[in-house]
């Protein structure tokens, strides 16, 4: 059977993708961040995932206000990088895993998570930056991907608890998938940041560090944190952190923290990364 080999939580800041694409990783502004994530890259190289389930959000790229699925799962064989206004990011197309994606879609819906099934979509920085964080600049991404797109732009995003429970349902589905795939699950976005309005630039490092602690030791408690706490304390775009709860839900109750990194700033964002294994 397929198995979940671990989970990664990571920010998906577009400027990080641009720094990688334009070979700025050694520049003074960026070098400290990339030094901090080097152990993450080393862990992924060793872990050799066959497929990554990536919980991310679309930023007005594939979806718009015309259609707003709360949870959408991509079942296609290929997902091209989206044009977010600059022309598409020059990174490889993302290869899907249709058999696993369809298995997840069917299993999750029968498990009472009403997924939207997507046969055609492009993927934006929310999904491709985490791939670059893990794999740098390969000619071809070294694993397949099941995109799990979560609405966190139109209020209300799904609750932290709903995300946590979805993660648990994903775990049940993966455990039943008849294959030998090594599956890595990612929760992306965050950490504290506010892009909009007069409070733009907000960072709350104390909130972020407490979140990293609690996602390891008290995920049920963290999953009960209401939206307004995220909006107020972590900034309006910090609500993306609920997607990390999907990743955490797919792991065992007890996990081992392999690595964590926290860096301020990357562009306007407090950047966090954590690697967890089942204990």
């Amino acid at each position, binding site marked *: 059977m397929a198995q979940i080999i671990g989970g990664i939580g990571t920010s998906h800041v577009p*400027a990080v993708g641009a720094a990688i694409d334009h070979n700025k990783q050694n520049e003074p502004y960026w070098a400290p961040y990339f030094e901090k994530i080097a152990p993450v890259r080393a862990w992924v190289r060793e872990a050799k995932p066959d497929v990554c389930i990536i919980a991310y959000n679309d*930023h*007005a*790229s594939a979806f*718009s*206000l*015309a259609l707003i699925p709360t949870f959408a799962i991509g079942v296609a064989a290929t997902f091209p990088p*989206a*044009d*977010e*206004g*600059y*022309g598409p990011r020059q990174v490889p197309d993302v290869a899907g895993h249709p058999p696993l994606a369809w298995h997840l879609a069917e299993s999750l819906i029968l498990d009472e998570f009403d997924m939207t099934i997507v046969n055609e979509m492009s993927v934006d920085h929310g999904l491709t930056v985490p791939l670059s964080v893990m794999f740098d600049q390969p000619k071809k991404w070294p694993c397949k991907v099941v995109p799990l797109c979560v609405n966190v*732009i*139109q*209020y*209300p995003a799904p609750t932290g608890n709903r995300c946590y429970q979805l993660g648990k349902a994903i775990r049940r589905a993966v455990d039943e998938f008849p294959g030998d795939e090594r599956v890595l699950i990612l929760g992306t976005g965050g950490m*504290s940041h*506010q*892009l*909009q*309005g*007069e*409070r*733009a*630039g*907000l*960072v*709350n*490092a*104390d*909130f972020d560090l407490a979140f990293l602690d609690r996602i390891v030791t008290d995920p049920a408690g963290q999953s009960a944190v209401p*939206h*307004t706490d995220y*909006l*107020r*304390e972590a900034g*309006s*775009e910090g609500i993306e952190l609920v997607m990390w709860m999907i990743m955490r839900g797919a792991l065992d109750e007890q996990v081992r923290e392999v690595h964590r990194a926290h860096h*301020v*700033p990357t*562009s*306007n964002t*407090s950047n966090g990364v954590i690697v967890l294994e089942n204990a």
Partner: protein
Amino acid sequence: MTTKYPRAIPDRAPRDYDDIPGTYVMDGDHSRRGYALNMFCMSLNQEANRDAFRADESGYLDAYALTDDQREAVLQRDWLGLLRLGGNIYYTFKLAIFDGLSMQQVGASMSGIEAEEFQQMMIDGGRPIEGNRTLADHGATPAEERY
């Protein structure tokens, strides 16, 4: 303040997040107000549309049911005003990308400081949460913050 447009009065009962300063939560009320505006911004994802907008900004906007204020705020690049008129930052940022602006430049404009000052604030650890949790922290009531 950097815009002449007041903060909209929500057409709904008060909510607990209404007293977060400088924050425009994209709820149903906000989304309804900004639908056409945000969908205009979304259209700039396509190169052909960017070319058409570049050729004739005002004419291009005719295809979208914008209010007069929204149209003016687009043409004036009033980044904070766009939010107050129903815009969402992920959408309005499409217009900023079109202009070749970075998120930090737009963040500076919305918060009424210079871009260099904003950049330095981020390097120094970002805008602190202390003093920025509630309207009361800013010494304002919700009604006052609207103007």
